[in-house]
C-alpha cells in the first residue's frame, strides 16, 4: 500500500531478437521515480531470418513492427479495475495508434524494466498516467519527424491518427510501419521539449472504452490463475495451520497416499505466530495428479497440531478489551487545540462507540499458482498476483535463488482486493515444485481462503464530540483501536502505523477548533492484511455516522452540515498537528493537498443529482456521507426502502467523484458500481469470527457476500470534469457508502447503527 520507490537500469524490451541498431542512450527521469521503462535508446530488433521484420521499441512499454502492429505492455495487474486496458489506452491515444488493432502484452514481474508493478493502493493511474503519455508521445514525435523528412514538410504540421501519420495540408499519409526505416537513424527526443497532446485532442482518454479482454472473458478463453497447464504438472492442496503459529506435531500420510491419484505428501514449515506477509503458513501438502485427488487426499491426512500461542484467542473477548481501551488515554496521533478542557466545559457532548468485524477478501477465484522449477535451477511462475515483483523476490528468497532466476508471469486475477498482493501461495507452489522436481499448481479451496486470509482487522472506535452553547462543533476526540498490519510480522507492532491512521482517521478534514486523535494497543492474533480501502472502511463508518448524528443534534441538514464543517476553501496538510508523519498515500502533500473546495464540489454535485432536498421533503430514507481516500474525493447518497414483503432494499445510490482527469469513464463508473456492491457486503452481511484462534466460517454459507437481490438497484456515478492530475478509483467508492447506508437506515428505522455488519435487516 505504501509505495516502494526505486529505479534501476534499463533492460532490453525483448531478449529474443537481435538488436538491430541501438542509438543514443540516455536516462530520462520522468514523473515519479517509481516509473521505470525510460532508459531510452531507440531499440531496433529484427526478428525475421533476414532481418526483414523491424520492431521499433522506443521504450519498455511500446513497440511498433513493420506489419504496423502496435504492441503495448500492461505492466500492472488486471484484477477487475480495467487497468490492463486503461493504461495502454493512454499510450495508444498519445501515439495516435489504431486502438482496435493494438495488441496488449502482460509484463512479467521486472521492476528494473517496467518500474513499480505493485497493483495496489489505487496507484496505477495516479503513478503512470504521465509516463504512459510520454511513452506514446516519444514514439509519436519520432514518427512526425520521419514523416516531415519524407514529405519535406514541417513535422508540426503532421499528426498521427489510427496508426497513420497524416499531413492534412497535402493529403499525404503513411502507416507507422512505412516510416520505420527512417526512424533507424533518429535519436530519442529531448523529454523536456516533448509535446503532449492537449486533453481536448484525445480520442480515447475521457471516453467509455471497453476492456480489452471482454470477448475472451465471455467466451471462457481468458486465462486466470488456475487455467495454465504444463506437461507433467502436479496439483497440490495443503492443510494449513488452523491457528496462525500452529505447528505440526505428528502426521500420517498413509491414508492420503491410498487415494487414487495421490503421489506424495510434503510438509511446509511455517514462520511462527507473526509469520509476515509473504511467507507460507505451516502445512502438509498433498501432491496429486488432479485437483480432486489432492482434495480427497488432504481430507485423509491425519495431523496432530500444537495450536501455539493463539489457541485461546477469542475475537469477541478482544473486542470487549478494545472497547475498554478506548475509555482510557491512548497514544496521541494528532492534536489541535485543547480537546480535554473544551470537552469538560462544552454545553453538550455526544459520545458513541463503533464496532466493525474482521473481513475476508473472498475473491471468487481462490488463490492458485503454478510453479515450474527447472533443471537449470531457475523457476518460472504463472500466478494471479497483484505484485509480481514481490512474488519474484519472495520466491527467490524462499528458494535461495538469484532474483534473475525467477520469472513471474501474471495471469488475469479473479479478483484481488489486496489479498493477491501477498505472495504466500506463490511461494508454496515454488517450494513444492523444487521439492518434487515437477511443475506444481497449488490450488486453494474456498475453505482455505476463508480460513487463512490476511484479514481486514476488526476494530473499535469511540468518538466524543463537544458542542458549545450556540450548537457549534468545538471538539472532536477520536479513539481508534485495531490489530495493525504490522502485527502480522512482529509481536511488537501494537498500534496502527501512521499509514493506517492516515487512512481516514488523522486526516479528519473538518474545521473543528479542537481535535484529538488517539490510538490504542491491540495485538494481532491472525494475519492482518489490507482490503479494498483498508482502514478507511471502519474510520469512515464511525466518522460519517457520528457527523450525521451531530448534524441531527444541531438541527442541520447533513449535507449543509458537512459543507459548513469543510469551512473556507483551503488546502490542508495536517503535518503541524500530527504526531509522526502524514503519509498522504505516498504523495507529496504540496503536489496533492487536501483541497476542501474539491470536496465541497462533490458534495454539492451529489446532492443536486440525487435530489437530496426533495428526498428529505418527501421523507425518503436517504443517507449521505463524503470521504476522500487515495487522493480521490467522493460523496455518496444512498436511499433505502422496504419492499412489499417488508424486506429492506436499496433502490438508488448516487456518487459524485473528483478523480482529476477521468481516463476511462466506463471503468470509473464500473468501479463505483462495484464499490457500492462490495461495500454493501461489508455493511450488511460479511463477518469473520475467531474462536480458539480459528476462523468459524468456512465457505459462502457462513461468510456471506451480497447476491443480486440484495444489490443496490440503481447506481449512478457523476464524474466531475477536471484537468487536475488523475487519481485512482479502485478503493475510494467503498468508504463513504457504508455510513451513507447506515444513515439512510436510521431514517427508515429510527435506530442508529454502531456495529457492522448491520444485523437482522437484510434477508
Amino acid at each position, binding site marked *: 500500500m505504501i509505495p516502494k520507490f526505486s529505479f534501476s537500469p534499463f533492460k532490453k524490451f525483448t531478449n529474443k531478437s537481435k538488436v538491430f541498431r541501438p542509438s543514443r542512450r540516455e536516462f530520462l527521469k520522468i514523473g515519479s521515480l517509481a516509473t521505470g521503462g525510460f532508459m531510452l535508446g531507440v531499440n531496433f530488433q529484427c526478428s525475421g531470418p533476414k532481418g526483414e521484420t523491424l520492431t521499433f521499441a522506443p521504450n519498455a512499454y511500446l513497440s511498433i513492427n513493420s506489419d504496423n502492429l502496435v504492441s503495448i505492455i500492461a505492466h500492472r495487474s*488486471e484484477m*477487475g479495475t480495467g487497468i490492463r486496458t486503461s493504461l495502454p489506452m493512454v499510450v495508444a491515444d498519445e501515439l495516435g495508434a489504431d486502438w482496435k488493432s493494438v495488441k496488449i502484452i502482460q509484463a512479467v514481474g521486472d521492476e528494473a524494466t517496467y518500474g513499480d508493478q505493485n497493483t495496489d493502493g489505487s496507484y496505477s493511474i495516479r503513478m503512470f498516467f504521465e509516463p504512459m503519455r510520454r511513452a506514446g508521445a516519444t514514439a509519436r514525435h519520432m514518427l512526425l519527424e520521419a514523416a516531415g523528412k519524407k514529405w519535406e514538410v514541417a513535422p508540426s504540421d503532421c499528426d498521427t491518427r489510427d496508426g497513420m501519420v497524416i499531413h492534412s495540408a497535402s493529403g499525404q499519409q503513411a502507416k507507422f510501419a512505412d516510416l520505420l526505416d527512417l526512424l533507424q537513424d533518429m535519436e530519442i527526443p529531448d523529454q523536456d521539449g516533448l509535446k503532449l497532446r492537449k486533453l481536448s485532442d484525445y480520442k480515447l482518454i475521457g471516453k467509455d472504452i*471497453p476492456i480489452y479482454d471482454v470477448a475472451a472473458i465471455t467466451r471462457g478463453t481468458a486465462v486466470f490463475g488456475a487455467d495454465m*497447464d504444463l506437461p507433467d504438472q502436479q496439483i497440490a492442496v495443503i492443510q494449513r495451520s488452523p491457528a496462525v503459529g500452529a505447528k505440526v506435531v505428528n502426521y500420517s500420510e498413509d491414508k492420503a497416499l491410498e487415494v*487414487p491419484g495421490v503421489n506424495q505428501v510434503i510438509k511446509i514449515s511455517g514462520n511462527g505466530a507473526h509469520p509476515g506477509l509473504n511467507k507460507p503458513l505451516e502445512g502438509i501438502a498433498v501432491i496429486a495428479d*488432479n485437483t480432486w485427488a489432492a482434495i480427497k487426499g488432504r481430507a485423509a491426512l491425519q495431523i496432530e497440531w500444537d495450536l501455539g500461542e493463539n489457541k485461546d484467542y477469542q475475537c469477541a473477548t478482544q473486542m470487549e478489551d478494545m472497547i475498554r481501551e478506548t475509555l482510557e488515554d491512548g497514544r496521541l496521533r494528532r492534536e489541535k487545540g485543547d480537546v480535554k478542557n473544551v470537552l469538560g466545559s462544552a454545553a453538550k457532548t455526544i459520545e458513541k462507540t463503533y464496532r466493525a468485524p474482521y473481513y475476508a477478501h473472498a475473491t471468487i477465484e481462490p488463490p492458485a499458482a503454478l510453479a515450474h522449477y527447472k533443471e537449470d535451477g531457475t523457476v518460472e511462475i504463472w500466478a494471479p498476483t497483484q505484485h509480481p515483483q514481490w512474488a519474484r523476490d519472495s520466491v527467490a528468497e524462499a528458494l535461495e535463488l538469484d532474483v534473475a532466476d525467477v520469472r513471474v508471469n501474471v495471469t488475469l486475477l479473479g*479478483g484481488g482486493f489486496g489479498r493477491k498482493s501477498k505472495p504466500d501461495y506463490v511461494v508454496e507452489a515454488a517450494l513444492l515444485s523444487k521439492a518434487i522436481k515437477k511443475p506444481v499448481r497449488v490450488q486453494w479451496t474456498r475453505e482455505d481462503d476463508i480460513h487463512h486470509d490476511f484479514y481486514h482487522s476488526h476494530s473499535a472506535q469511540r468518538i466524543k464530540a463537544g458542542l458549545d452553547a450556540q450548537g457549534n462543533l468545538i471538539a472532536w476526540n477520536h479513539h481508534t483501536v485495531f490489530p495493525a498490519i504490522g502485527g502480522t510480522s512482529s509481536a511488537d507492532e501494537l498500534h496502527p502505523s501512521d499509514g493506517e491512521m492516515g487512512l481516514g482517521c488523522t486526516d479528519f478534514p473538518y474545521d473543528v477548533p479542537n481535535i484529538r486523535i488517539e490510538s490504542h494497543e491491540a495485538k494481532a492474533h491472525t494475519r492482518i492484511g489490507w482490503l479494498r480501502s483498508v482502514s478507511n472502511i471502519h474510520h469512515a463508518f464511525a466518522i460519517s455516522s457520528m457527523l450525521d448524528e451531530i448534524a441531527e443534534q444541531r438541527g442541520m441538514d447533513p449535507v449543509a452540515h458537512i459543507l459548513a464543517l469543510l469551512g473556507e476553501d483551503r488546502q490542508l496538510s495536517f503535518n503541524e498537528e500530527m504526531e509522526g508523519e502524514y503519509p498522504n498515500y505516498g504523495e507529496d502533500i504540496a503536489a496533492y493537498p487536501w483541497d476542501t473546495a474539491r470536496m465541497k464540489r462533490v458534495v454539492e454535485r451529489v446532492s443536486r443529482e440525487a435530489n437530496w432536498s426533495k428526498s428529505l421533503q418527501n421523507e425518503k430514507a436517504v443517507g449521505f456521507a463524503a470521504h476522500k481516500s487515495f487522493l480521490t474525493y467522493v460523496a455518496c447518497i444512498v436511499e433505502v426502502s422496504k419492499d412489499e414483503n417488508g424486506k429492506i432494499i436499496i433502490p438508488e445510490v448516487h456518487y459524485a467523484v473528483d478523480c482529476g482527469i477521468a481516463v476511462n469513464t466506463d471503468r470509473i463508473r464500473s468501479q463505483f458500481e*462495484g464499490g457500492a456492491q462490495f461495500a454493501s457486503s461489508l455493511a450488511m452481511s460479511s463477518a469473520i469470527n475467531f474462536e480458539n484462534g480459528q476462523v468459524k466460517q468456512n465457505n*459462502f454459507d457462513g461468510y456471506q457476500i451480497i447476491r443480486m437481490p440484495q444489490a443496490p*438497484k440503481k447506481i449512478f456515478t457523476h464524474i466531475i470534469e477536471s484537468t487536475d492530475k488523475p487519481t485512482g478509483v479502485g478503493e475510494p467508492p467503498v468508504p463513504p457508502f457504508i455510513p451513507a447506508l447506515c444513515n439512510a437506515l436510521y431514517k427508515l428505522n429510527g435506530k442508529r447503527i454502531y456495529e457492522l455488519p448491520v444485523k437482522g435487516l437484510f434477508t
Partner: protein
Amino acid sequence: MEKLNTMEKFTISINGESREVTAPADMPLLWVIRDLLSLKGTKFGCGQALCGACTVHLDGVAIRSCSMPISEVGAQELTTIEGLSANGEHPLQKAWQEHVVPQCGYCQTGQIMNAAALLQENPSPSEAEIENAMAGNLCRCGTYNRIKAAIQTASKS
C-alpha cells in the same frame, strides 16, 4: 494396482462430442471438465454449490458442476461455456460485451451459463425473476446491475 481398481471409465457427451474419461465415481464434474478435459472456461469458486462460478448445462438445465459427481451424468448432454455458441455469438455473450459487464471476469462464464438457462426457460423474465434466477451466482466485484441489464438486452434480441 489397488488404486486403479477404484477408477472407472465414463463416456460423456460434452459440447456435442463424446469423450471418455477415467475417474473415480465421486469426482465432481467440475474437475472432470477442468483437469481431465482441459476446458478452462468453467471456474472453481466454492466447491459447495454456493457461488455458481462452475455453472454448466446438463440437458439444458443449469447445474453446479462442483457438486455433481461424474457418475450421475450418464447420457445427458453437457454444455460448457465453450459449447454455448460457435463463435461466442450467443445473444448473452454479445449483450455482455455491449454492456461491458465483466470486471475481473472470473464469475462471468458461470453467470452467462446460468442466464442462458434462464432465458431458455423464460425468454422474457421480469427484473424480479432475473434477480431470483441469478441469486445463486456470486460476483465479488459487483457487476450485478450490468448482468441484469445484459440479460434484459439479450431477452429482447
